[in-house]
């Protein structure tokens, strides 16, 4: 037997050392990071300035005055309260509804597949457009929802135009738009769960409630956490629905972070205050994301350990 020595093509002259290679490979990510970090750091700088576009001569560093003034400003505390309330309410309700719908559609069938696709339609609607649709549907003069409300005795239900029902109305729109997002994530999770535990439980005649709380729910938790994280981050930054329906009103009922920051920048041209509000919103989302990701990682580790 003759040994055949393959002639490998000679490597080109330029070689990257093993030490440098990881840095080179991460360069594209670094460039993307710079694209994100520059505006972020600019915002941080602005947030420490007294900076109104209409008073350029008065621009100067005030080193945290924007933040300090928030502590004594009832409007800020109202913004924080409304933002958290809105995010908490929408996420909890969407999670419950999304899970219920996903459970109903869990079994694969042509009808269930069709319904699940149909239920995704609101998610394909731009939130601002959805808000305008709902604005028409809740019009007290000709809105179909106002008509339906009148049939159950709510003759003068004022939807988004009353401070007592404005939050309820925008939450309703948010639920209509985003419940399908949670539903589709949980449905994918449900359909990918291993079948053996459920078959064993069925053989043993375990009650359905026990199966749900002790088998389905724990196995579905990573999916629930993922869906909750995405929705919570989105919901606390809500702008389109609230601004399109109420512009933050009536009064200060719905002046969530994004609406307040938008008005501060585009109407009042108060860049410093607007940036400070956005940095606080960033800090809240960062904090919430950390909690969720840590829990998600813990659950994943536990799942691996069990495997």
């Amino acid at each position, binding site marked *: 037997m003759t040994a055949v020595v393959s002639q490998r093509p000679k490597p080109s002259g330029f070689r990257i050392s093993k030490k440098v290679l990881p840095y080179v490979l991460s360069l594209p990510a670094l460039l993307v990071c710079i694209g994100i970090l520059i505006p972020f750091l600019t915002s941080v700088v602005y947030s420490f300035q007294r900076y*109104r*576009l*209409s*008073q*350029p001569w*008065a621009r100067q560093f005030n080193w945290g005055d924007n933040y300090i*003034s928030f502590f004594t400003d009832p409007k800020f505390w109202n913004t924080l309260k409304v933002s958290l309330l809105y995010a908490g309410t929408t996420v909890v309700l969407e999670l419950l509804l999304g899970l219920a719908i996903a459970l109903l559609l869990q079994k694969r069938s042509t009808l269930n597949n069709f319904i699940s696709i149909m239920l995704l339609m609101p998610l394909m609607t731009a939130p601002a457009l959805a808000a305008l649709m709902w*604005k028409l549907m*809740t*019009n*007290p*003069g000709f809105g179909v929802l106002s008509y339906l409300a009148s049939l159950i005795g709510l003759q*003068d239900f*004022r*939807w*988004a*135009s*009353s*401070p007592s029902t404005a939050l309820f109305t925008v939450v309703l729109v948010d639920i209509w738009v985003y419940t399908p997002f949670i539903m589709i994530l949980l449905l994918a999770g449900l359909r990918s769960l291993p079948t053996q535990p459920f078959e064993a439980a069925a053989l043993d005649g375990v009650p359905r409630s026990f199966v749900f709380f002790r088998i389905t729910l724990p196995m579905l938790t990573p999916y629930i956490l993922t869906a909750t994280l995405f929705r919570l981050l989105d919901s606390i930054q809500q702008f389109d629905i609230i601004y399109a*329906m*109420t*512009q*933050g*009103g*009536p*009064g*200060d009922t719905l002046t969530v972070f994004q609406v307040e920051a938008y*008005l501060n920048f*585009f*109407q*009042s*041209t*108060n860049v410093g205050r607007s940036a400070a509000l956005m940095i606080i919103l960033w800090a809240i989302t960062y904090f919430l994301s950390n909690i969720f990701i840590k829990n998600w990682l813990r659950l994943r580790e536990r799942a691996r350990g069990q495997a």
Partner: protein
Amino acid sequence: MHEKEKDLIDAFLRGQVDRRGLIKGLGAMGLAAGTAGTLLNLGQTRALAADFDWQAHKGKTIKLLLNKHPYADAMIADLENFKKLTGMNVVYDVFPEDVYFDKVTAALSASSPEYDAFMTGAYMTWTYGPAGWITDLNEWIKDPAKTNPNYAWDDFLPGVKSSCAWNGKPGGALGSEDAKQWCIPWAFEQNNITYNKGMFDKAGVGVPGNMDEMITTAAKLQKDIGGGVYGIGVRGSRSWATIHPGFLSAYANFNEKDLTVSADGKLAAAMNTAGSKAFHAKWVQMIQESGPKDWSTYTWYQVGTDLGAGASAMIFDADCLGYFMNGGDNKMAGKLAYAAFTANPEAKASTPNIWIWSLAMSNFSKDKDATWYFLQWASGPEHGLFGATKMDFVDPVRQSVWKDEMFREKLNKSYPGYVEMFDASAAGASIKFTAQPLFFDLTTEWAATLQKMVAKEVPVDEGLDKLAESINGQLKEAGLG
């Protein structure tokens, strides 16, 4: 062009023959209306070009930022004449009003040279001017080498013209000697009453003559008409735009102010005086009793369309909103009428606050002289007359246009009472706000407070005291109070 026709058109352009005489004369010469219009355009272009070098910037291109509006449509319809006159090219972007001002702020705050000129309101220039984003147009208006001799700056309605001029000092009087002309008025809106004649007749009510009458009339209309029709449409969204139309027009008629200016130039809130509180109480009562149920979401759009659709009996808003609702395919087209409104029974005439669609020049424009050529043409008497007679350019800002017989006849024919309404309130029409850079902060908060009072979240007295306290705090923080 035949000499006789040419002479007649020249006589018209010199003001020796009125418009009716011109048309009669051209008709006698056997010219159809279309041909007469073309000849007139040619004559105007020739007359414009006669005493001024309109071709000085030939071959240049300028770019405009426009709001989707009938005034912009009128300008676009006449743009070819400008291009022929100057040899310049004009390109433009048109945005809907919802996003228009955000686009302007974004472009200007980024010092973008993309747009040379743009549509704006006078209130906006209180931000744009001090920020250094727009140019003081006096430099061009007062330069005979750059402005055509027929521009007739004095032809502009004085209250409107001075409303676009401010010296940049917070609290400084509009139109003062040292004022900078931040923008050129293009067309404006007085805030008066537009009402549904049929509904008024059915309820047996007349046009309200003061604030108390407006409250009772609106309530009676709502009660008597029925069918879900409400008495009066006014704006209510959480925005500065809720304050400036009917609300401030009536408020100013009672001699109430938004802010006071001290001798040393410091500003202070003036919304919590006894007179202001009494007025607010009446306004709030009117909305609670006879306003739309979802008033707090109402912008000009809902106010107008409800009137046009017959869902409201009257509006106290921009007169041109009533104008547009009386035409087109609106259900109530041809059934609306107009009246000036004097809220204060002791006042002699109405004092409407005004919104002025204006043209401003970007400070970042690469060719300001060329841009000025466009601005002086677009705000000139010829284009003003074209817009007013051929398009929907109401309310024009030039006195000569208001004197034009054809224009008045057009209004009298299809918009009964509009001219009388205009004549009755034009003298008192001006911006009633105090010019200062926190305009949008303060008016948005004012609107939010109104919403709280209408929703009975806070009593009027308490709400206004809190508002004044908050505004004084903001003024102080900004170094203005």
